[in-house]
């Protein structure tokens, strides 16, 4: 309805009366002078003298002097006026936010805080892994609280041990009881702890329904495409959000994963020399099977995975895998070590633990580009339908010490 231009240094606003009448319908005659007055008042606000002309059912408001200095200011105000009128008289724009909100506020609860004894490096990583081990070994719902503490939510009747002992990466770790405190969602540390507890509960639920979890991403273990070279899988990414009044929400969005079906060892028919001699592998993006981090192949080393490597502190790659808990029973001892680079750091992997990242070029060569695009580029209209199974799945979360029920549809937000 309104258009603002800068021609020869002069601001010109064109108001289309036909469009205005269509928008305002019965209130056109009443509101037209007020709108024109509002537009002219915007010019006046910036001391811009103007002339007003009516031509071909259009109001043309033209600055008399060079006014490029205020062009941005005047245009912004007039476009905002235009938008406000459109929203008011044509209320067909709605906004939906992809979060599920808890029906009731979460009840505040107490936690028992345990502090890690000793250890000065990588505390965040250690306390996170330790929480998982404690959860599995002691059947206690537990998560990291601060860098060197973990916390257990209390139901009220449990008897708390004074110390929790676990074994992690061949080291004994002791967590000593420090204190009990009540969670306050006004405190950032507590808010983050509650998010972690809820995220863990979401992960468990998704795991039980056939998803693999990578951080805050859950991928359904089901291939969407019949093909020998690639696999396409779908899932969601999620995040817990703490709202005001102790309500919580889960944000979810669809994600898709496109991977090579075979690992490099199978792809090169278990021939180490074939891998070493293929220069096209250098620079290729790959993804290890045990982590979602993308890496680039730097070179294929002459050593096999059983040879001690200086880069790994004198142990072989196979031993290194065992140390970090990566499954080694399916690895062939003849596999060569591949040197990779990711975010500036060097990594070492065996071909059977690496899958190529499929590029558009690969898909074109396989004649699968359109088929894959249709699978992973979800049309907007299908978003709600796609996410509906997750809104149902996550509508109730049992945290053991309390249950959270979520409204199982996305929220509409009024944006004036």
């Amino acid at each position, binding site marked *: 309805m309104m258009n603002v231009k800068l021609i020869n240094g002069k601001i010109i606003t064109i108001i289309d009366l036909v469009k205005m009448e269509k928008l305002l319908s019965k209130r056109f005659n009443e509101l037209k002078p007020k709108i024109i007055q509002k537009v002219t008042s915007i010019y006046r606000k910036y001391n811009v003298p103007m002339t007003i002309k009516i031509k071909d059912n259009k109001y043309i408001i033209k600055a008399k002097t060079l006014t490029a200095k205020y062009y941005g200011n005047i245009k912004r105000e007039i476009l905002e006026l235009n938008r406000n009128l459109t929203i008011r008289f044509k209320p067909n724009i709605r906004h939906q936010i992809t979060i599920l909100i808890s029906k009731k506020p979460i009840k505040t609860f107490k936690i028992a805080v345990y502090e890690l004894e000793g250890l000065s490096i990588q505390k965040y990583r250690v306390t996170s892994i330790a929480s998982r081990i404690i959860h599995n070994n002691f059947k206690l719902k537990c998560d990291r609280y601060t860098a060197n503490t973990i916390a257990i939510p209390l139901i009220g009747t449990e008897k708390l041990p004074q110390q929790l002992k676990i074994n992690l990466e061949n080291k004994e770790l002791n967590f000593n009881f420090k204190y009990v405190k009540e969670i306050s969602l006004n405190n950032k540390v507590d808010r983050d702890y509650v998010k972690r507890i809820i995220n863990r509960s979401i992960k468990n639920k998704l795991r039980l329904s056939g998803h693999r979890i990578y951080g805050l991403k859950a991928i359904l273990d089901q291939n969407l495409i019949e093909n020998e070279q690639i696999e396409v899988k779908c899932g969601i990414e999620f995040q817990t*959000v703490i709202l005001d009044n102790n309500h919580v929400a889960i944000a979810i969005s669809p994600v898709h994963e496109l991977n090579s079906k075979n690992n490099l060892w199978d792809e090169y028919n278990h021939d180490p020399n074939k891998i070493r001699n293929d220069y096209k592998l*250098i*620079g290729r993006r790959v993804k290890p099977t045990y982590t979602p981090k993308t890496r680039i192949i730097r070179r294929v080393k002459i050593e096999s995975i059983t040879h001690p490597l200086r880069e790994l502190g004198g142990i072989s790659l196979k031993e290194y895998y065992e140390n970090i808990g990566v499954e080694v029973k399916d690895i062939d001892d003849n596999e060569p070590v591949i040197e990779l680079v990711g975010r500036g750091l060097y990594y070492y992997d065996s071909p059977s633990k690496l899958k190529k990242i499929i590029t558009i070029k690969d898909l074109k060569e396989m004649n699968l580009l359109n088929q894959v695009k249709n699978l992973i580029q979800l049309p907007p209209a299908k978003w709600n339908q796609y996410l509906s199974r997750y809104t149902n799945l996550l509508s109730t979360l049992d945290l053991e010490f309390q249950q959270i029920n979520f409204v199982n549809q996305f929220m509409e937000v009024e944006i004036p």
Partner: protein
Amino acid sequence: MITGRILPRPILKFKYGTALTPIEGLKLNLKPFSGPSKIKIELLIGDKAKSNAEKLFENLTYGVKGYPGISEIFNCEVEVTNKIVVDENDFLNTINEISSSSDIVLAFIPDEMQLPYNLDPYMPIKRKLSMRGIVSQMVNYSTCKYLKNNSYVLYNLALNIYSKAGGKPWILDEILSSQIFIGYDTAPGIIVATIIQGKPPMKFKWDAELTRHPEIASNVDELIIKLVSEFNLNEPINSLTILKDGRIHQKELIKITSAIKELTERNLMKNDANWNIIEVKKKFTPRILRIVKNLMENPEKGTYIKLSKYSTIICTTGYPERRIFLQAPIRPIMIEIVDSKYWNYDLDIISRDVYWLSELHYASAFVSTKLPITILYAHRICSFWNANVKPQLNLKEKLWFL
């Protein structure tokens, strides 16, 4: 409980006027806010792309239909100080021939993956030139071949060259709520922080510190103090906003607050100065869908939803630049206030400032970036640093990483 609104678009200030988008300001010939009157360019051209590269450079300088040429847009003279045509396998040996008297080296190089990884000249050129304090701009062979007459590409290339050579094409017309914004990001072994003024001329600087802590920015305090003390402010800071890409760990928070305390003690910050510490999250954030007559579209740029008294989500990209979903709806960013001096902040204003800072990215005249430049630039420098691109001190006020 959850409320939303649309934040006002930033007004961009050029030398002779203001506009709402960069491309509008440039097309209206409003001229850049500030910058050099002459840019000395050195050309490094792979022999296989010689004629296409020369044609592209001619178009870049003198213009094509829909693009008037770099001199006309930015009001500056372009001087080619040297032209080196090189065998494409020999880029690295030729770098030493480049003199350091030019403002920027424009290198026409093979596309990514065209050469074996160890011969790909992109990173080695960046690395070697930045160590000598020389800024570079790469152009791929395929861009030379297929897009040499494309006004969209030429506008963006000209913008990059001008900005890397020290130009400031536009700034914000309105003053932000904080006098100073600092953004930081970490990567293994390094912390990078950037600083920008919240009012004209919006001076910018970055710096980096090595760190041995693999998980957190353990010496972020030292970096903040160094950056502020070398920023040459005329008066002590009266308001400061610190932003981090991602989660701020408790220990980092302690370091940041101790840095603020030290800045006050050193008289670099006023005793009663207001400060806010903010996390900016770009991953796993909720999406906002705009439904128009039952059709879903991207939300309007600036759409903002207040989730709680601590956090909001903001669409720093969106309609009209990106109206329909290409792959998925645009991903808003989420901000969360982690700490504050007075806790009397206005979330609307903080969100607006974060949104407006995302409009200062000089890599494209057509679409803005998702993150505010304070943390986007820290993030980019971290990525380059990880790839061993460690520039000279003279580049600390230049946008070599665009």
